[in-house]
């Protein structure tokens, strides 16, 4: 706008810049310093101690497996939801509302919800008994059943975290012009071809941000694991929490935090690289 008022935008963004500098950038640097220092001197001791811990490799493996299992399923369900709801006229609002309910549910609450289903005398075992598959209560959430526990956590995460992916995908689908689809139909493209060749490339920006957001959140998984399996299933953030709270060792906790940040950042960069968004080709 006018040049003589060029200070106005700076005045407007200044409070938020100051806030983010103080409570985002400074803690970020502090975390790194905490992780790579010992008694005020640079040292790899915390990182070494983290890597020597028995739960270290287990928590890395668990977190990655969970992310790999959960994120693609969430994306697939979200795409199915988006495609389905696009064909609905009346009732669309209500359906979308129901599907977005988990957006307001915390991972702790999601863990507790699935605990009520999967505990020993819960609904899942009752159902299996009713179907004649089980004869007595089976436990799914103990350390003796790591595979079942893994699936339980994955299901709870898929149940809760799909909503955010769906919302971003549907918002992206809403922006795809109808003409593209109609043109493809006229040229004889079937539903599958249309989906793969027209819709998916056009919603790339939505796919990209949904995947980045969801993957970063998946590496942060913690409370749902804690609610379902206690400490039977170590994950990265859970370890950071334990080192800070139980062991009062801020250095090792910070080392975990730095590791989680590096993984999240790497995942973000990979998505930015792999799913290229070409501004020229957007509708």
């Amino acid at each position: 706008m006018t040049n003589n008022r060029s200070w106005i935008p700076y005045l407007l963004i200044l409070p938020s810049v100051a806030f983010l500098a103080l409570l985002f950038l400074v803690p970020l640097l502090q975390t790194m310093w905490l992780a790579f220092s010992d008694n005020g001197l640079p040292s790899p001791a915390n990182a070494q101690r983290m890597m020597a811990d028995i739960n270290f490799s287990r928590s890395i493996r668990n977190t990655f497996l969970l992310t790999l299992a959960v994120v693609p399923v969430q994306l697939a369900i979200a795409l199915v939801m988006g495609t389905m709801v696009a064909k609905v006229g009346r009732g669309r609002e209500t359906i979308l509302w129901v599907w977005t309910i988990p957006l307001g549910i915390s991972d702790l609450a999601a863990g507790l919800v699935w605990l009520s289903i999967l505990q020993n005398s819960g609904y899942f075992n009752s159902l299996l008994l009713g179907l004649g598959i089980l004869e007595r209560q089976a436990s799914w959430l103990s350390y003796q059943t790591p595979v079942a526990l893994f699936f339980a956590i994955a299901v709870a995460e898929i149940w809760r975290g799909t909503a955010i992916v769906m919302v971003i995908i549907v918002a992206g689908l809403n922006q795809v012009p109808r003409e593209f689809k109609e043109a493809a139909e006229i040229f004889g493209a079937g539903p599958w071809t249309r989906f793969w060749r027209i819709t998916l490339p056009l919603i790339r920006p939505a796919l990209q941000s949904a995947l980045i957001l969801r993957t970063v959140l998946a590496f942060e998984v913690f409370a749902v694991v804690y609610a379902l399996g206690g400490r039977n299933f170590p994950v990265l953030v859970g370890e950071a929490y334990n080192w800070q709270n139980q062991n009062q060792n801020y250095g090792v906790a910070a080392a975990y935090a730095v590791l989680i940040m590096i993984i999240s950042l790497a995942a973000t960069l990979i998505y930015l690289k792999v799913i290229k968004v070409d501004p020229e080709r957007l509708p």
Partner: protein
Amino acid sequence: MSAQTTSKASPASFVSSSRWLLWSGIAALCAWVLVPIYLVALGALGGRQGVYQWPKTGLPTGISLDPFILFLKTEGVLQSFLNSLGAAGITVALSILLGAPAGYALARYNFHGKDSYRLLVLLTRAFPLAILALPLTVSFIRLGLYDTIIGVGLIHTVLALPFAALVTQGIFMGVPRELEEAAWVFGCTRVQAFFKIVAPLALPGIVATAVFAFVISWNEVFAASVLTVRNRTLTAYLLTVLSESPMHYRFAGGLMLILPSVIFIFAVRRYLFAIWGISSK
């Protein structure tokens, strides 16, 4: 592909069967979302007997509000509920007060550093922000903010502020610039024009942003648990007492966490997609 050949053979039956398939898929996915919430509500209202009833029918038998009220009367529950409300209130106030002006600047002005600012905001998304609570314990202890609602509200604002700035940018872009300029012509100052013309038009969107900030804070577990000891928020309280509380208390806690946010999501359902369409750009 096979669907296409059938459609050529008998179009009418294909249409109705694909309609049927569509609606059963939708119904299944709705049930997938709703049934677990119904079941945890049964668990919360069924009390101790409900937990050990075996096998369960899934029907609402033997439920009453008493177990839930008993849970509310447990020491610490009500206080942590109020603490959660307080922290969420601070988060809402701060993220709108700091985020909306930034959103307005991004929507209306071209200035040096605009791209760097957007980069800073987007950068926060690549980081697991709650983790930053770890080093903050030390500085918060020094500042007297450790174990206070204000401290929790501050770190939750870090989570909500980038979102608020991006979303309000979109909302202000939706308010026609001409209206504002007309107000200037008629003698309003910029501040007057903003509060008389822009703010009323942007208000519903800003309220929706506020609700999201509330939900972000209400649901956050990690930072709240790390930064509090006595003044726990509801999530932090539930996390710490989890291992020693009986099952029906855990379900009651889960239900208590779910209810407010479900109501809030219902309140802003019209804005959900517009907001996420904007913030994911």
